């Protein structure tokens, strides 16, 4: 799409032999034109044929009329990362058609409306023109559905050309329209018209083919925000307060959508609250109030919202109130690129608030973790009586990923050390009749908490962001302050041992380590396969949380050269790793990109190879 990508020069594609289940297709349209239905239909049909597939939507930050690209990667190996180029182009956006065409590799495929003009047509590309206007004239859909139906024409052509199952297309439409036959039929008419046209007029001239496989059986396709929304409901969420912001909005939308199914109302009354606040400060305030009062409370936001939540993050940390903040990271600084991915909030989130504060952060790397960490975040927040930030990103959150279906959790909710009226009395009996909100009874830094409504007259305390002693009483004494800070440090150290451990893939003989986290996991896997093919064996560590722990130090000790892969400008995780393991800090080299696009395996291998060359010299 842009020149940066073209540093990876596109290969020349041979029309023979067939390329089966290993290519990428990009659909160029305008947003607001309803291409999402078409794209979802295609991706689902391929997926249901048993072929691993993933979809990434590159869309603008406006409502309609601007260029959008949807990339569908078909990969029998199961690679889901972005690639620099796509072999197949559906050029349905006249405003970008020239650039889109230019980006095709030689031997690539261009499907386009018959009336589209290219300024510099290429001779090394296969064209499949589609008489879209004629189709539309014939079908004459209602005006408001026109754009949607139009897009179904490329679904038909693609289906026929690449061997996608017509049956699965129909199933996908049935799924999309919740079985509404009328809608399905209208769409199918266009699909079939396009199939018929393709059969009759568009002889196959390219090598690309989808063939049924058995690699998706039992799996589902889902986006991370939906996974997280369902996960939050399964995880016992009580209060969601939020303020709309891309790309986090769909997470709350998912909660709203699935709550009635997962937590059905009784007599029209519900046991959860979803409240749209007036801004992110208020959203944070509401969950701080709700968390303090004893519910599992969460918000979802993105960079600008994180900036606005600093003060409340610090309060929750210091008053020790459990809250969960999902940050679906988008490209910053500032308003930045609202619809582009980044991992740029690592430092902002970890250090949220002024003064000394380091927070538990979870770093989901796949759909299962997006789902599971929604519950884990609540468990950790309540266990450690503290904010937990879940740092997902736009790529994980808004794109379609293949995954095993989620499992119903077997562990009970961990509500942490909460004393109700009954257990409070027992606690006093067991502890010399002494209780203080912030007393470190168990030497793990975590006090015993009571919540409003506790009937014991001694159970109440006044939460505050000001200095306090173990009883929670205001104190300006320097020893009270230092002792409290030391306890908070101890608490973080306890947390260090409880947060999700990194996933380490240690390969015998590897001297090179790769550290990554979050949505770059697939690109790293693919890159490691390629490096191995090149003769470079690597071990990898996928971080899944902050604070960093001993495993991380051990991994860093074990390799001579370690690459830290991340999607930000300042190598933020690398900075944290340096401070965490100073002894091995010098081994770290950044493999970082900050251009708003999901990472590719090629970027990683190129950077690693370049670095190895430069070191050798």
């Amino acid at each position, binding site marked *: 799409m842009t020149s940066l990508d073209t540093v990876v020069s596109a290969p020349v594609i041979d029309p023979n032999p067939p390329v089966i289940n290993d290519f990428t297709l990009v659909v160029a349209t305008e947003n607001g034109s309803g291409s999402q239905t078409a794209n979802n239909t295609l991706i689902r049909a391929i997926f249901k044929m048993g072929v691993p597939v993933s979809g990434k939507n590159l869309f603008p930050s406006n409502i309609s009329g601007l260029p959008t690209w949807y990339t569908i990667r078909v990969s029998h190996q199961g690679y889901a990362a972005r690639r620099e180029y796509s072999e197949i182009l559906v050029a349905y956006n006249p405003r970008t058609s020239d650039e889109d065409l230019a980006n095709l590799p030689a031997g690539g495929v261009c499907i386009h409306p018959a009336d589209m003009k290219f300024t510099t047509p290429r001779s090394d590309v296969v064209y499949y023109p589609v008489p879209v206007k004629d189709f539309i004239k014939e079908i004459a859909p209602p005006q408001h559905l026109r754009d949607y139906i139009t897009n179904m024409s490329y679904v038909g052509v693609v289906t026929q050309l690449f061997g996608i199952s017509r049956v699965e297309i129909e199933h996908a439409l049935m799924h999309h329209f919740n079985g509404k036959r009328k809608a399905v039929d209208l769409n199918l008419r266009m699909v079939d018209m396009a199939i018929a046209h393709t059969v009759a007029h568009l002889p196959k001239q390219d090598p690309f083919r989808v063939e049924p496989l058995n690699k998706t059986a039992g799996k589902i396709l889902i986006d991370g925000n939906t996974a997280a929304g369902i996960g939050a409901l399964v995880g016992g969420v009580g*209060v969601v307060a939020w303020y709309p912001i891309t790309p986090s909005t769909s997470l709350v939308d998912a909660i709203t959508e699935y709550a009635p199914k997962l937590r059905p109302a009784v007599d029209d009354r519900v046991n959860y609250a979803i409240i749209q606040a007036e801004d992110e400060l208020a959203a944070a305030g509401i969950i701080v*109030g709700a968390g303090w009062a004893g519910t599992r409370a969460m918000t979802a936001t993105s960079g600008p919202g994180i900036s606005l939540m600093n003060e409340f993050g610090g*309060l929750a940390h210091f008053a020790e109130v459990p809250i969960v903040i999902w940050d679906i990271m988008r490209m910053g600084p500032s308003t930045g690129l609202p619809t582009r991915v980044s991992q740029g909030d690592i430092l902002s989130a970890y250090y949220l608030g002024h003064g000394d504060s380091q927070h538990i952060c979870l770093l989901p790397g796949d759909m299962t973790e997006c789902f599971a960490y929604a519950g884990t975040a609540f468990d950790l927040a309540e266990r450690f009586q503290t904010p937990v930030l879940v740092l997902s990103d736009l790529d994980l959150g808004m794109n379609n990923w293949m995954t095993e279906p989620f499992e119903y959790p077997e562990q009970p909710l961990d509500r942490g050390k909460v004393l109700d009226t009954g257990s409070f009395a027992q606690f006093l009996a067991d502890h010399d009749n002494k209780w203080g909100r912030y007393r470190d009874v168990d030497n793990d830094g975590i006090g015993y908490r009571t919540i409003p409504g506790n009937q014991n007259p001694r159970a109440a305390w006044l939460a505050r962001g000001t200095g306090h002693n173990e009883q929670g009483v205001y104190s300006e004494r320097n020893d009270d302050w230092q002792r409290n800070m030391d306890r908070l440090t101890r608490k973080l150290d306890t947390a260090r041992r409880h947060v999700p451990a990194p996933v380490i893939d240690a390969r015998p003989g590897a001297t090179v380590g790769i550290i990554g986290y979050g949505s770059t996991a697939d690109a790293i896997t693919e890159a490691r396969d390629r490096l191995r093919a090149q003769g470079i064996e690597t071990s990898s560590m996928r971080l899944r949380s902050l604070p960093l722990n001993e495993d991380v130090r051990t991994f860093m000790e074990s390799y001579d050269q370690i690459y830290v892969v991340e999607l930000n400008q300042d190598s933020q995780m690398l900075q944290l790793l340096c401070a965490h393991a100073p002894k091995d800090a010098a081994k770290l080299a950044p493999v970082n990109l900050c251009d708003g696009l999901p990472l590719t395996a090629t970027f990683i291998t190129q950077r690693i190879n370049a670095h190895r060359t430069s070191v050798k010299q």
Partner: protein
Amino acid sequence: MTATTTRPTNRIGLTTQDYQGGTSTLCAGCGHNSITSQIIAACYDLSLDPATVLKMSGIGCSSKTPAYFLGKSFGFNTLHGRMPSVTTGAMIANRTMTAIGVSGDGDTGSIGFGQFKHMMRRNVPMVYIVENNGVYGLTKGQHSATADIGQHLKYAGTNVLPPIDICAEAIAADCGFVARSFSGDAKQVRELIKAAMSYEGTAVIDIISPCVTFNNEDDSSKSYAYGKDKEERIQDIQFIQSYEEVVVDYEPGSEQIVKLHDGPTIKLRKLNRDYDATDRWAAIKLLEECRQSNIFVTGLIHINESRPTLQQTMSLIDEPLAYQTEAQLRPSRAAFAAVMAEF
């Protein structure tokens, strides 16, 4: 040593002592201290169980006061200007509590203005007291947003901006309980607090509460002298609990009776004005009139019980969300499987 004198107790057997908090660290003579006393008195009179009360505040001298009353109640001394949102969350999480919040004019009118307005819009059940001294006490004497035009302060100089009228803003935001009082008017403060604590939605009480250290010059509309000289009560207010077996007799015409949801009654004896506190339009007129003529009216300016509270609009269950058990919180396996099957 001395003979044990039995302190008087209220209906639930508690003494005023049971409603006290820590020792105040405010300046001697601060208006806020008087309000603290009336909160204690009101809660005692109402026989409130301290375990059912939430004390909330922002940051400021005023916002420190929850440490000085109701030592057996949970509370949250939050952030500057952010009491509304935190209380909103707490009251959603546990709708069975009664929330009383104390804020300052800076806390509410400056940094917290947006939250204040949106809380009222949502009708979050809470008593919201503004201890209004026209000045930033805790940061040592800057003008606040409720300072009179021309108010002169030692360090901050002369204020040139028009004051925000807390009550007028509350009415504009459709708040259903809007009152104004003066910290020197102990009885009125107490009765208003009792009425407010018995009201179902957001109840705002704007109380002029002199800052003796920074803004108590006689010409300040937030001084003791001004309050004493200029206060004009709209009504004599009396709060009558539902269990009080008195027949609430009143003289129609000169008295107005407002029945609250769960039975208690507010009896308003009209004074100079023929004023109907249930008439929103009358309230708007009164405030505009007083603004124009610099009249310091106190009393129950407006009451409206028709707006649903936030928890009602959200269709929450009656029990506290905070007390839901795992069985209630976690979806059934069947429901979960059904959702998974959608993908």
